């Protein structure tokens, strides 16, 4: 597979490691509800189709990338940088 790292460009999947479901939102630090915490840790939608997932470019620029990939065909539809330099954060401010 080729993942189009927004910073480094298309790179072989060997340079990345898989970080799983990209839709999980960690509960706020102040939220100590057991249900919210265990939902975040244990629930997975695991869809057969388009899947928002996170890849870490460990052997590249070491950023995290939110990838939309179809789990039936492995076709990658979008790649977007996460973290302090994510385009979403720039737009919001």
């Amino acid at each position, binding site marked *: 597979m080729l993942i189009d790292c927004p910073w480094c460009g298309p790179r072989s999947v060997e340079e990345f490691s898989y970080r799983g479901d990209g839709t999980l939102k*960690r509960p706020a*630090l102040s939220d*100590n509800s*057991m249900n919210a915490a265990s939902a975040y*840790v244990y629930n997975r939608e695991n869809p057969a189709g388009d899947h928002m997932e*996170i890849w870490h470019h460990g052997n590249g620029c070491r950023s995290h990338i939110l990838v939309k990939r179809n789990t039936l065909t*492995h076709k990658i539809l979008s790649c977007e940088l996460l973290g*302090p330099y994510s385009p979403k*954060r720039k737009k919001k401010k």
Partner: protein
Amino acid sequence: MSGYRISSPDTGVRIDPTKLLNFSFNGRTYSGFEGDTLASALLANGVGVLGRSFKYHRPRGLFSAGLEEPNALVTLRQGRRSEPNIKATEIELYDGLIAKSQNCWPSPKFDLMAINQLAGNALSAGFYYKTFMGPNVFFNKTTEVWWQFEKIIRRAAGLGKASLEADPDIYERMHAWCDVLVVGGGPAGLIAGERAAEAGAKVILCEQMAETGGSLVGSKDLIDGMEGDEWAKACIERLKDHENVRILTRTTVQSYYDDNLLHAIERVADHKIKPDAFEPRQRSWKIRAKSVIIATGAFERPLVFSGNDRPGIMLADAARRYAVEYGVLPGKLISIFTNNDTAYHAARTMADCGANIKTIIDVRQQVSGEIRAIAASIGAELLVGDAVSRTSGLQKISAIHVGHFNADSKLVAPSTHRIETDCLLVSGGWSPAIHLTSQFGGTPIWDEGLQAFLPGKALQNWYGAGAMAGKFGLANTLLSATDAAKSALKSIGIKPKKLKPPIVNSEEISVQPAAVYEIRRAIKKGKSFVDLQHDVTSEDVRLAHREGFISVEHLKRYTTLGMATDQGKTSNVTGLAIMAEARGEAIEDVGTTRFRPPFTPVTLGAIAGENYGHLKPYRLSPMNDWHIARGANMYANGLWMRPETYNQSGETVEQAYIREAGAVRKSVGLVDVSTLGKIDVQGPDAGEFLNRIYSNGFAKLPIGKARYGLMLREDGFLFDDGTTWRLDENHYLMTTTTAKAGPVMEHMEYHLDVVWPELKVSLVSVTDQWAGIALAGPNSRKVLEACVSGTDMSDKAFPFMGVRDGEITDIPIKIARLSFSGEMAFEVFCGAMHGQALWDALMDAGKAFDITPYGLEALSTLRIEKGHVAGPELNGRTNANDLGLGGMVSTKKPFIGSVLVHREALNETGRKQLVGLRSLDGQKILGGSHIVASADQAQPGESLGHTTSACFSPELNCYISLGLLKDGRARIGEKLHVTSPVRGTHGAVEVVSPHMVDPDGRRMHG
């Protein structure tokens, strides 16, 4: 096979008759020419029986001229380089080649195992599921009977023999990127490659033979007025001059993966007796192509009839190729049995080369005038509407029996006449080689006219060309290839050049076969083979149908049709056709089994590439050479190599670590801790971030101080522990365990990028920036006082957990006063490339105090005595409370795991807790022992827990261990036992607090 060499001018295009090569087959020496394959050379020497079939051990001869060969499997080379199951058709002859046949004893001609044929129908498909169980009575309740039968069956089954000596050859990987990858160097591949190259695209062209040309080799058809053979040679020369084209011959494209990654294997040195110096034997090409043109041609199919497996029976086009390309005719008295026109053209070409074609039997009711003219022109008797009902001959075909063929009932009437022949060529139609496209294409599409499966919809950027896409005939092939090139170039934004299509004049041959796959006899006698290697007969297919195994996948698994080394390249479609007929359905409703990589068998070494020989990289500490010179045996700890003990002459490992640990307790020792994970954490929010990562408080850690911290997983269980030093207002240096360095770095990077992107924190791995040496023992401070400048080493000025900068022999160092061993200890860090210099300086400074280097074993002895936890205690199933570290789980601040750590189950009674164990009977406590109540070794009873880290304690002069024991903290003082059935030990122990030496830590703080 009574084949023989011919030497008329335009035959044997691939061989060089001036270069004689000697080779040995089954101990006898023969000769062939350069350019021959082992198959063509054996054929030329009249060697008929090459091996025996898998189950019935029937004699098998050469059947094809390519990688679809089901029969001619040999073991090539000897000793370390011997390799089984190699097809004689894919071996390029070289001088001194040694090969022998397989799966037969004592020889192919006379094989004892042939008696299997007497069992006849008893050995039909799936028989082994219905027997070998033995009666279901008395003792034989289990499958003991099968276990005995299996030993015999395993020895009888299996083809070639694997060598057990390490393969001396090296294999390499090569990454390549191109705009257009062309698979196949035949007419379609050549013209498509040239069109792409002319448009300026970066092209890679792969051809599995030693030279390109494919069906054009020796062809007399005209392209732009040139003979096909010349045109192909001229085309490849032009391509070689393009600097944006790479030609890879002897390279087979094996697999197709996501995003157009194609895996090809180049046989760099297989055509030589062994590779040259430093030359890889094979190279594994990982090609990332923006677009792919697949021109892999098609395989000719046989017809199925009774006795169709006798040596001397061969595919028609294969025989043509042997004549044209290798100058060998397969027999002196040749007959042909076909259901389509292509066999006639093969016959005429062979006749031109001097072949004596006696009879042509065509199962169709009528044939065209041109076809009749061809038969007449080569003097062959043409029998239309007839079929071969059976064949005869022991080791080789001697005659065929022909009768009228009834197209409706597909039955052949009893044979009306017998025809002497020493070679029967068969042609049952053509199957496009859609294997590669099907790995990344929709379901294959059945073409009723061609009676063949064509590639399904392209699911990635590939384009089919030539016979592979069902475009047979030279003109058709070249046209489809130029279209494919145009589409490929357009798809990647390259403008194709306007070039007129080549003018072709060649005889257009109709490929369309009659829909006849099997000729059945009215009275069922003799065996008709569908899969020649696995001995699957048409009756086996019907048996599968009768027993309900009607899906094609069930058919394959129940009969093993198409599961042999040729993967059914000449048998799958025929098998499906027979099943379709049994089910009374059309072939397209029956469908095909799934095409899987690789296209042809690939050596494991080539796929492993340069990892073969060294599986994983290794990491060395700056003092690695010193440790080895000092006699340390090095052990793998993750990727790092670490010294276990510095054995002095004759010492056992235990004696060595007891001496080393004793020296630390008595005076001072030093240990290499460079392998610890070290992470530079900086930024305005660094303190806040650490406070969220560690379970204990870090917000108020003063500058110049270190703190031991616990990291939890989100589910509240322990992840890792280590110390973090605060170097400055916004600058920390974190250390982790050696094994968890990578995972901790990724854990923190994930939370900065994904969970809290608003925090300004920079993380940089500095594991390789710092060498680390721990100095431990009562005299450790004195040693440092003797050589450290730039900082006051006194206890008051440098308290426990303090961090200072300084110098030793003008090497800049950082010193942290922290102790893993429990003794007074300091960790001294310096630039990695000064590590050995620092080590030597400390050894000098410590000479007066008899400083002793100690390894991993002594280090763990000291920390076990102290009760410090490490890897074996942080086994991923323990939490802070289990290990008595509940106090480090803050309740005043949120952190990773802070919610789920408080779940009732994590703190309930019955969980295993950290304890110390002291041996009461002097017996050694072994790692991995279980703690039980019972004193009786024979009846140990239920496990209450297990030992995690055990050693001999020089301080307490007895064997001790840390362990995890159900409700351990409540059982201090109890007498229990540790048992290890797999090591045969059972000893009495007392449960004690894990902190067995200096529990209140006076030595560290003193």
